[in-house]
Structure formats: structure tokens, C-alpha cells
């Protein structure tokens, strides 16, 4: 496997996330910190899910056979639940921190909850994508032939696209989730949880990449549109932005120059 595969897959998977980071987060220290804390929370959730799976496996005394597969499926579903739980915990923490910051310096522009939703979603997404894909990426630098035993030769590409969609989904889920928490719309939380479970469950049909990827991308588009409207976008805004007629945006850009 060549350097082309490595770089190609790396940029497919992490390119948008890197761009989002560079253009929206890297300039503000507070956002970087919240991003890293978000990544940490995802890591802790992964730790708990691994612990659950490990304990379950030890209880069933490591027998081989279909039970391992069921345990794995159970592990995945429990992991999704724990991830969303930790997203909620992070929301609570941010709410407290936000109030604290606001009370301390009222005239400073503390990040709004929407911004923190985006940052936390990106943190979760980046960590999730990195953990899922980095080992595969490093293997792609080494020697080998993909699919020599009859597996699909598109293994790396599929993984890269899947990682990309997971990262973007986490961003959108973060926005929708936090908005649901803010407005006490528990149906939003439930839908986020269900779509996350759906996306993970879709990966169970793993050799059939086509269905898997296409449906996940459809879900991502839907979530993206929903997150756009939740974050305050509207068709009018979008039109103004695309036609470069958005006065606020143009003025803001001029000022910062």
C-alpha cells in the first residue's frame, strides 16, 4: 500500500475536520480548550464502554462462537448509549461553566451555547474518528495487499469515508443535542440517540459497503440540514450568504481585517 493511499485516505477522513479546526477553532484559545475537553469526555465514555465489554467477555469466560459476536453487538450498542450519556454530562458541565464565566465577566463575550455545541460535537467527532481510523492508517503505510483473502479491496477507502461521515455526524449531533437540552425538547435527544444507534447498527452489515455508506451519508445530510436550521440558519440566510449579500458577514470580515 502506497503513500498515495495513506495521504489520500488521511485527507478524506480528516480533511474537513482539520479545515473546521483551522478556520473556526484554532484562533480562539478557549475554543481549543473546550475541544480538548470534549475529546477527553469521548475518551472517558470509550473507556467505560470498553470496561463493560471486557467485563461481559470475562463473565462469559471468553468462549468462542456466536456469543462473541452478540457480545460485540451489545458492546457497540452500550457504547453508543454511554457516548450520548457523556454528551449530556458535558452539556451539563458546559452549562455550569458558562454560567460561571458569565457571572465573572459579564462584558466579555463568553462563547454561546450554540458555539459550545459545535465545538463539543467537533471534539467528540475528532476523537472518535481518530480512534477508529489511525491504526488502520498506520497499517496502510506498511507492506501488504488489500483483500488478498477475498475481502473487498476498497477497505481503506471505505474506512476513510466512514470516518469522515462519523466526524460530521458527531458535529451535527452535538448541535442538535445541545439545542434539545437547552429548549428541553427531549424528542431531539431521543432522535439523536436513535440515529446514532442506527448508524452503528448499519455498520453491522459490513461487507456490503454500498448500502452502508450511502444510507449513512443520507442520515448525515438530514442531520446536517436539521442542525443548520436548529443553529439559526434559514433559507433566506443561506441565499444571502451564497450570493455574498449578507451584510453582517461582510461587515464583520471587513472589521477584522
Amino acid at each position, binding site marked *: 500500500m502506497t503513500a498515495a493511499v495513506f495521504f489520500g485516505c488521511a485527507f478524506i477522513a480528516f480533511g474537513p475536520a482539520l479545515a473546521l479546526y483551522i478556520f473556526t477553532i484554532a484562533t480562539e*484559545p478557549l475554543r481549543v480548550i473546550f475541544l480538548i475537553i470534549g475529546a477527553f469526555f469521548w475518551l472517558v465514555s*470509550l473507556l467505560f464502554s470498553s470496561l463493560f465489554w471486557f467485563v461481559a467477555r470475562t463473565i462469559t469466560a471468553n468462549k468462542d462462537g456466536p456469543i462473541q459476536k452478540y457480545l460485540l453487538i451489545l458492546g457497540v450498542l452500550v457504547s453508543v448509549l454511554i457516548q450520548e450519556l457523556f454528551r449530556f454530562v458535558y452539556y451539563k458541565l458546559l452549562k455550569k461553566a458558562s454560567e460561571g464565566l458569565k457571572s465573572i465577566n459579564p462584558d466579555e463575550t463568553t462563547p454561546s451555547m450554540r458555539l459550545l455545541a459545535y465545538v463539543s460535537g467537533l471534539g467528540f467527532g475528532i476523537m472518535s474518528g481518530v480512534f477508529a481510523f489511525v491504526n488502520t492508517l498506520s497499517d496502510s503505510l506498511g507492506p501488504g495487499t488489500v483483500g488478498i483473502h477475498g475481502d473487498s479491496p476498497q477497505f481503506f477507502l471505505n474506512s476513510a469515508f466512514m470516518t469522515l461521515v462519523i466526524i460530521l455526524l458527531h458535529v451535527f449531533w452535538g448541535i442538535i443535542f445541545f439545542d434539545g437540552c437547552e429548549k428541553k425538547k427531549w424528542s431531539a435527544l431521543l432522535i439523536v440517540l436513535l440515529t446514532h444507534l442506527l448508524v452503528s447498527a448499519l455498520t453491522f452489515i459490513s461487507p456490503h459497503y454500498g448500502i452502508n455508506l450511502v444510507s449513512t451519508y443520507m442520515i448525515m445530510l438530514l442531520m446536517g440540514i436539521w442542525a443548520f436550521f436548529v443553529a439559526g440558519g434559514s433559507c433566506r440566510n443561506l441565499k444571502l450568504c451564497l450570493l455574498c449579500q449578507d451584510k453582517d458577514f461582510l461587515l464583520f470580515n471587513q472589521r477584522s481585517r
Partner: protein
Amino acid sequence: MLTFMASDSEEEVCDERTSLMSAESPPPRCCQEARQGLEDGENAAQWMPWPPGTRASGPQPAGWSFHLESTTQTAHVHFHDTRARRRRAHRGRSLWPSPCGFPQRSQDSEEDFEDDADHYVCGGVPGQPSGLEEELTLKYGAKHVIMLFVPVTLCMIVVVATIKSVRFYTEKNGQLIYTPFTEDTPSVGQRLLNSVLNTLIMISVIVAMTIFLVVLYKYRCYKFIHGWLIMSSLMLLFLFTYIYLGEVLKTYNVAMDYPTLFLTVWNFGAVGMVCIHWKGPLVLQQAYLIMISALMALVFIKYLPEWSAWVILGAISVYDLVAVLCPKGPLRMLVETAQERNEPIFPALIYSSAMVWTVGMAKLDPSSQGALQLPYDPEMEEDSYDSFGEPSYPEVFEPPLPGYPGDELEEEEERGVKLGLGDFIFYSVLVGKAAATGSGDWNTTLACFVAILIGLCLTLLLLAVFKKALPALPISITFGLIFYFSTDNLVRPFMDTLASHQLYI
């Protein structure tokens, strides 16, 4: 150890050591000024900010022995704030800590203020609500966290990249004399016992060295300390760099003739010695400090046996905690001695990330305006991360402006955070070990990296709250160790199984 420190005291030390500083920098008179409170504007103008980046952080410790002990006492983070402190003194508030790093509570500050005019303990009646102090703390807090994240990340990246590519540093090739017990024992119990014994020996060596250093410092044997540090940094910058370069060239099968090698190593080492011990651009100095920390960490990763390394990491965090926080701890005594003498707390082995921040000014003479506002803008200052420590800065700030009207303070602030090089080294050792062991697993390395950053963040938060010298190792190393062992044993099998079935969570 993390501390806040106003760099007033450093001005005087730096007068002798760093000549990039403007010669006319007036002696800080914040106490008197605060008392008078009248010619505030005038005096404020006279308080030329001490240019950052000119601090000559001392030499690296010589070789193994000194380095071991100095690493522990280098866990410092200093937080400089000349201007803000003076401004607050001027406004009659005693919010900011004294130059020597320990915060003076407002009740004490009055007396200290009267007693010792040279101590720049800013006394005065707190005339502003404390919320403002905390606001400023937090406002500067996030920036400083990032100012430390970046060098720590860079050091770790260098170490991990080297470990993953150069095989030399993962090969077992003997042990240090400080860890005499081997780990090639038949039984687990014996191995554990050996690693604990190794740790005990190492930590006692470190404690002995630290106490020796404190004693030397107390009895003002500066020449001895400087000579020692110069020897150790010579060794690091020349010998270890030569070995490192040799191994990297071997790995990539690049041939280099001896004259070129000599030229490269000589230039690197000589510039490094000048930058670290004498004067140099801040960025270059920081880069050299990061490189020598990485080199030292690589040496530790190579020569410390497996289990001993982990036990040593744990033990040294405990030692750091004890040494910095206990009243009789050597590092605390060092800090206090430096405070009494109004000297910077052992500038050797400390990474500093001073930053100059100019906020707008009011009612200036056109001449002074030009001089003082060049070349900084507030937005530019805040946004451009690498704008700190420009060497041209001192020339801009010429002697006091006599005609400075009004009492609008020029709100120039110099804020910096300092972290001891020992912290860099041990963070990198942890992450490097995580990268070296484990079956080529990147997840463990990344988990340790995030854990250490979060620990550093928490430590800086505590620093902002407590405003006194704090150990930087315990929280980060604890998180790092927890995440290393749990990721290696729990998360790795889980993620590997998921990856092999191509499941995504």
C-alpha cells in the same frame, strides 16, 4: 511547579544578564507610586515593560546526575505580570501576586508594603471588586493554557516521531547506574521488587540532588551552579545531539561526511548555548529548550527499564507534590529563598512563554505614541501567536516619557507562563513510553496525550485560582498513567475487535 510571578524582580537580574533590555529601565517603584497615587500617569509611563524573550534561562544540568535532581525542581510555571500589577498598585488594589510568586493577601500587603519598598509587594486598599481580578485571571487563563499546550505538544510530537521511526531508542542497551536492578527476572514478584528498588534509588538520588541544589543556592554558590549547568547543557547540546543525529541518519540511510557533521553539530550546539544561557530571540530559546527536553526524554525512554519507568513516573509525581507544597519541601524552600532575594526562581531549566500585549493608549504625545505603539496592535497582538518576544521590542521602548499627560495608564502588560523543563521531560517520557511499548498502537499514545493536556489544563486552572507555586506533574501524570493502563488493557482489545469487524461506534 507552576507559579505566578511578576517579572519586576527579574528586571534587575536581567539587567546584568540580558542586555537586550533597555538600559534605562527604571527601578520599579510601584510601592511608592501606589502610595502617592498622584503622578500615576507619569510614573506609569516610566515603567517600561521589561521586554520578554530576553530572559536568559540558565543552562541545562550537567549530565545525568544533576539533571535528575533538577528535573524535579523545574516544575515551575511562572506567571509574569509587571504592568498589570503596577497598574493595580497604582489604582490602589492589591490583587496580583508579589514578584516572587506567592500571592500576598490584601491584609498582609499593607504591612509588607510599608516594610519593604524594594519588594514590590503591591499594597494598597483593594478598591475594585474582586470579580475584576478573577475576570483578568480567566481572560488570560485560556491564552496561557494554549501557550503551554503548544510547546508540550511539540515536545511530545518530536519524541513520538523519533520513537516510532528510529529504532535505536526502543532497543534495550543497558541501564543507567541509577537503576541497577535488572528486570530480566523469572518471576513477576521479583521484577516488581526490582522496579520498586530502582525507583527508590532514583528518587533518593533526585532528592539528594535537589537538596544539594537548594543548599548551594542558599549559600549563594552561584558560580558552582552555573558551571554545573553549563557542563550539562554542553553535554546535551553536543553529545546527545550528535548521537541523535547519527541514529536518525542511520535510520534513513543518509550519508553525511564528518566535516558537514562537525559543522552542523557545532552550529547547533553553539547557538543553543548562546540562546539558553545568554541572550537570544525568545522563539529560538523556546525551540532549543523543547529540543533538549525531547533529547533528555528519549534518553530516559531508552535507558529506563519497563516497569521501573512507570513506577518512577508515579513516584516522581508524588515527590513533586511533596516538594512543592510541603512547608519544608526543597522546591518550596527554593521558591521562598528566591522570593526573599527578589530573584527569579532559578531561571535555568524553565521554559518561559512571555508575551507582550499592548492595549490601546490614551492621550499620548505623538512621538511617544509612535514609539510605544509600534509595532503592536491589540488585535494583532492577541491574534498573532508568534508575536511575542520580538527582539526589536526593547529598542522601541526608550527612556521614560517625561511629558506623559494624564493618568490614563498605558495598559501594556507582559504576561508569561513558565513551566519547568522537568515537566516537559516527564510528560514526553510518558507519551514516548506509551508509543514505544504496545503493539504499534496509536490509540494509547493519543489517549495519554489527551490525558496529559487535560491534566495541564486543570493544573493551570488551579494555578489561576490559588496563585501560588503548584506542582505540574501530579495531575497530568496521574491522568496519563490511568489512561495508559486502561487504554492498553481495556480499550485496545475493544477497538481492535471493532476494527477487524469494521464496526463503528
